[in-house]
């Protein structure tokens, strides 16, 4: 049987959703029968590959690197699942929106009390922050939403199972 190509993506989030994924414990072995993990913070693959069937996207869109990766992922993936509250709503990551523009924020964090103090802004080193933090679907279309902070392992298992079935059917149709 051909295994589905699964990716997991870690954007602006705490990685708690990935931890919850690992909480599926022994079901991970069963999952491994059905999927091939082609991209993930859990594996050492640098470039997002082509022809991904399902991608779990953890985290909100908070900087230019996230934007680049999610657009790439969208082009190369059949089914995107917004994975956890940060991806679905912005959640805690988006709390920075309350502090104004990225510049306001960086000043607040790095130069509080020292108005002329240095703010890290080295091009090409630290990713440039987006104007606001947004959920994933505000940037690219998303097929499914899996809320929770983090979603519990059972919910993740149900979502992946469902997506795999759909994926199998769609693969057959091709």
């Amino acid at each position: 049987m051909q295994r589905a190509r699964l990716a997991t993506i870690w954007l602006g989030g705490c990685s708690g959703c990935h931890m919850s994924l690992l909480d599926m414990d022994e079901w991970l072995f069963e999952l491994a029968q059905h999927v091939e993990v082609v991209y993930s913070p859990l594996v050492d693959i640098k470039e997002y590959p082509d022809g991904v069937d399902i991608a779990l996207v953890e985290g909100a869109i908070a900087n230019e690197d996230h934007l680049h990766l999610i657009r790439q992922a969208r082009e190369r993936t059949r089914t995107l699942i917004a994975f956890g509250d940060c991806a679905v709503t912005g959640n805690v990551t988006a709390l920075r929106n309350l502090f104004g523009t990225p510049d306001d924020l960086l000043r607040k964090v790095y130069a509080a009390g020292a108005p002329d103090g240095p703010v890290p802004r080295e091009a090409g080193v630290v990713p440039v922050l987006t104007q606001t933090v947004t959920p994933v679907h505000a940037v690219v279309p998303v097929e499914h939403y899996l809320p929770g902070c983090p979603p519990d392992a059972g919910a993740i298992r149900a979502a992946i199972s469902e997506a795999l079935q759909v994926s199998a059917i769609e693969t057959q149709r091709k």
Partner: protein
Amino acid sequence: MSVRTLSINGQQVSAPAEATVLEAARDAGITIPTLCHLDGLSDVGACRLCLVEITGSNKLQPACHTRVAEGMEVQTETPRLQQYRRMVVELLFAERNHVCAVCVANGHCELQNLARALGMYHVRFDYLSPTCAVDITHSRFGIDHNRCVLCARCVRACDEVEGVHTWDIAGRGVASRVISDLDQPWGESTSCTACGKCVLACPTGAIFRRGVTVGEMERDSAKIRFIVEARNQRW
């Protein structure tokens, strides 16, 4: 007591003549979602979640504010109503900073329950991310305007049940804010009796008891109705 017979979702229902469509539906075991309604308080028809379709009326009517009538035909779950209700909840989530993960009411929140019940899984609108104050000047309670949905249940509970009218609403549109007295910090309010009815009435985590953990945030809003009924049925 005169009785009216009507149909709700095709089901024959009878109700007292003075009952609202919402009361008639609930008595018949039909759930209509609500947010600004709270048993025991007057109805203001503000949240628009309980809108229903009534045959012969080209406008949707709020079930909480519409009296039953003989032969009335009510629909409470048409696709259009479901779509509008989901959007109402979507708009609320986008309006202020409802971050469930860091909210004291997580798991005990009517807004969260509504989202779940109505199938509102994600918000398609821009989050407005306003900067809202948190007032913890009161020794026992706090109000976090980030979580307020402006249902005005606190305003009515305070005015109609406790009778002191500490709360009211200032400003307009999305800039509306619940205020205590003449927009003083809650702790400086001279009218507040610290009775805690606003805490009972609040559907979200906006008004909370201080020093209470997330797991302990359960509130029994039915107590408001109990107080009102007990007062009216004294013998």
